[in-house]
């Protein structure tokens, strides 16, 4: 190598402008906590009970009882101090570690629950978490689908349609065969069929992938609505009878307090989800398939020049991904013990895409994001049934507000696969 000068040092005296975005958000939430939940929260003299127990624990974790007013005020003071610390760091152009927003978020949540539970007195922690996981199931499956697709260069907006198709076929097949497990087999097929259309138009005819995805979503909605109101409603006993996957508690693990009932007393669908996440993570980063998948999503021509068949791999990956999303759709019907209903995926496919972006296209990140969304949604549900002072409609907006903040750049610099959405080869 020719000698090069060392890494360039800034010769000019210049500094990045101070980034006030996060400190301002911290400060607003801190002040809200201190005054809204604390000082003027009207919780003086009340108590909030966090209950952890369920019926079947080895030993029961005692309930945590806190005095609402001082707790919320105390948490508010700490949050305001943390906001000040973040502002001080910002003036020094530094950023706190990942632990900072996590701790901040948990503390804010704790203060909020303390305040919200002050009227009713009891926050059921375990069902709150278990429900959060359940609501995350279609999001996680959907995010895995989107991730496998985009990592191979195909943007999949049709996750929504794939979830819905999976929910539909799972319900119909399970109902017709009187066997919920048959629905579990059918669901991925429905998702993959949607993916067939997606790849056909996107790869064969270079149709814009976002447009074809949206069109497919509308198509699946129309098709399932039509079949629902004709075939399914005409003979619901045969075609749309409720079938439910039983919960299968895993011995021993299910008996661990709090964690056990949340993670290990679930249906087989949830266990399949754990497996899917683990397998995708390992394969994506440690296998030949993963290396090639990432290559065709980043630089398809480079992959082509080493003999990888770009479009064939893209088709295969998108079909597999479609199957994964279809499986996620099964959650809405057989996974929740419900009959099929019109448009029951209710936009979860789009939230799954948001989870994928928030998770920076990594399986583990997407899972964390999906869990966050699931938790926000379940919190909204739980609080609205508990009858807290906040209007339930506002609470149900929570996941979407979280989504907007999350996707609008609060996750730092994100870089999607470079070739995502770009068709490859000769038309």
């Amino acid at each position: 190598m020719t000698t090069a000068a060392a890494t360039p040092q800034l010769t000019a005296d210049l500094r990045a402008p101070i980034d006030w975005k996060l400190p301002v958000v911290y400060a607003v939430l801190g002040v809200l906590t201190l005054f809204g939940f604390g000082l003027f929260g009207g919780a003086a003299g009340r108590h909030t009970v966090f209950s952890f127990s369920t019926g079947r624990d080895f030993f029961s974790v005692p309930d945590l009882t806190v005095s609402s007013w001082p707790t919320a005020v105390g948490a508010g003071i700490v949050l305001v101090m943390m906001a000040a610390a973040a502002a001080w760091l910002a003036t020094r152009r530094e950023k706190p570690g990942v632990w900072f927003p996590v701790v901040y978020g948990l503390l804010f949540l704790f203060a909020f629950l303390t305040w919200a539970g002050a009227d009713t007195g009891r926050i059921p922690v375990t069902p709150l978490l278990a429900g959060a996981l359940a609501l995350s199931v279609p999001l996680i499956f959907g995010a895995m689908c989107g991730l496998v697709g985009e990592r191979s260069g195909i943007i999949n907006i049709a996750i929504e349609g794939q979830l819905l198709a999976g929910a539909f076929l799972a319900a119909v097949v399970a109902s017709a065969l009187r066997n919920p497990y048959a629905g579990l087999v059918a669901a991925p097929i429905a998702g993959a069929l949607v993916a067939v259309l997606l790849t056909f138009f996107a790869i064969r005819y270079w149709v814009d992938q976002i447009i074809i995805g949206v069109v497919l979503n509308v198509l699946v909605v129309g098709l399932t609505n039509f079949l629902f109101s004709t075939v399914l409603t005409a003979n619901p006993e045969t075609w749309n009878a409720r079938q439910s996957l039983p919960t299968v508690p895993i011995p021993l693990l299910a008996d661990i307090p709090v964690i056990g009932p949340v993670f290990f007393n679930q249906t087989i669908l949830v266990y399949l989800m754990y497996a899917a996440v683990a397998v995708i993570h390992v394969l994506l980063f440690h296998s030949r398939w993963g290396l090639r998948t990432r290559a065709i999503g980043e630089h398809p021509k480079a992959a082509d020049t080493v003999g990888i068949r770009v479009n064939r791999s893209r088709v295969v990956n998108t079909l597999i991904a479609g199957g994964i999303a279809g499986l996620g759709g099964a959650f809405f019907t057989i996974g929740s013990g419900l009959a099929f209903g019109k448009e029951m995926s209710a936009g979860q496919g789009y939230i799954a895409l948001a989870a994928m972006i928030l998770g920076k296209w990594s399986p583990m990140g997407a899972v964390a994001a999906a869990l966050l969304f699931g938790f926000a949604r379940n919190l909204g549900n739980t609080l609205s049934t508990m009858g807290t002072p906040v209007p339930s409609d506002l609470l149900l907006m929570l996941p979407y507000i979280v989504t907007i903040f999350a996707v609008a750049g609060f996750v730092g610099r994100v870089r999607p696969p470079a070739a995502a959405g770009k068709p490859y080869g000769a038309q």
Partner: protein
Amino acid sequence: MKLELSGITKRFGSFTANDSIDLVVTPGEIHALLGENGAGKSTLMNVLYGLYAPEEGEILIDGRAVRFSGPGDAVAAGIGMVHQHFMLVPVFTVAESVALGYEPTRGAGMMDLAEARRKVEEISARFGFSIDPDAVIEDLPVGAQQRVEIIKALSRDAEVLILDEPTAVLTPQETDELIGIMRQLKERGTSIVFITHKLREVKAIADEITVIRRGRVVGQAAPESTESELAGLMVGREVHLTTDKEAPEPGDATFSVENLTVVGGGESVLLDDVSFSVRRGEVLAIAGVDGNGQSELAEAILGLVAPRTGRIVLDGRDLGERSVKERLRAGIGFVPEDRSTDGVIAGFAIRENMILDLYDAEPYAKGLSMRPAVVRTEGEKKVEEFDIRLSSIDHPISTLSGGNQQKVVLARELGRPLRLLVASQPTRGVDVGSIEFVHRRIIAERDAGTPCVIVSTELDEVYNLADRIAVMYKGRLVGIVPPDTPRDVLGLMMAGVPEDEALARVESGEDATEISAAEEA
């Protein structure tokens, strides 16, 4: 192995990119394929590498005809290719990049990354490359990325290595190292097909030279041929490689850049405290390897990127708060480096492209209305003046060759009174005949008293135009030197070595390149 191409013809629609081309590469030979941009060299190599299927002709290896249905077949037959635009995934590590497509596995499809690393280290040691198998591609300098490409080809036992314009992105010293690597490969029996349009390099390294013009082989030449002989073959007529020009008569320094700093995403410093001034009637050429801040400098002058600090002063006025349009109206002529994305609108007619930045100004517009008749007559005058070869001024500009498109851009930018000319890569993708013309026009603009800033990565162009040469490296101005500074000194400066040190090292012979040494001899 002996490689023969026989009667290769490749057409794209009605355009014949390769017309019955014959080529023989014997074992252990460095075969240069010389031709202008667009002559069909890369097409031919893409045929050889299995990326394009030829309409006619065949490929023979050791006398046997072979058919490649894709690059995989070509690689299996022992052909390796280093593309001009590297085929490397920027976010992969070196080991992953080399393994891609031929992954060592530990069963069940799981990658054996240790084996991939070992392979990189082994080849890297054999040729004395210092490449860390765990480095991420996008963090490596281009020279190192190119070596990764070579490792990639060698790891698949390539016996014929195609290097497509390998020196386009290298400093002279890096080019010298590449030539060393090519010699080493040749000694080990690897044949090399070396695609280039740079005459000096061909003379320095090639055993055999095949010249291609407009898709046809127009001749073979020996490396002993002179540069003007080779250029003549390449272009098809006598060419003047240097522009005749008078000594500059510089006036006042009417344009200056002071402490300009541009910071990109992720706080990467793109321009670092750059200061210089240009006098009237003077060409300041900005030399440097692509991607060292030249583009950002040109864009900052026009106002396309906002500097974090610093001033840009033209005729005593700070341009700081002015919009791009105001700057153009203040008399800045701007030739962008990427003609197809920033210079012309492909679907617009030629006459429309000539007034892209003047469409609402006199005489092309009056009040709210445009004046199509004036646009046409003025356009036709410029076609005449700038010698643009076209069939109709109403045709889309995409129907013109690169050289003629560039003349349209020049006609637009030079066709009005200028106070400053900024031209980036003014002859990139332009045929040799048009290069002469473009250079003459730039010198004419200089002689008319306009300060000119010319950004170029081609040292020949820099020497041809410059009255002073500024060298950039990693966003900094390494130094401003006179136009007679030796090439090797510029080369070292382009790698960040300060002027004094570079001069000393070249004079002591320590860092003089082989090519220069050969020329002096």
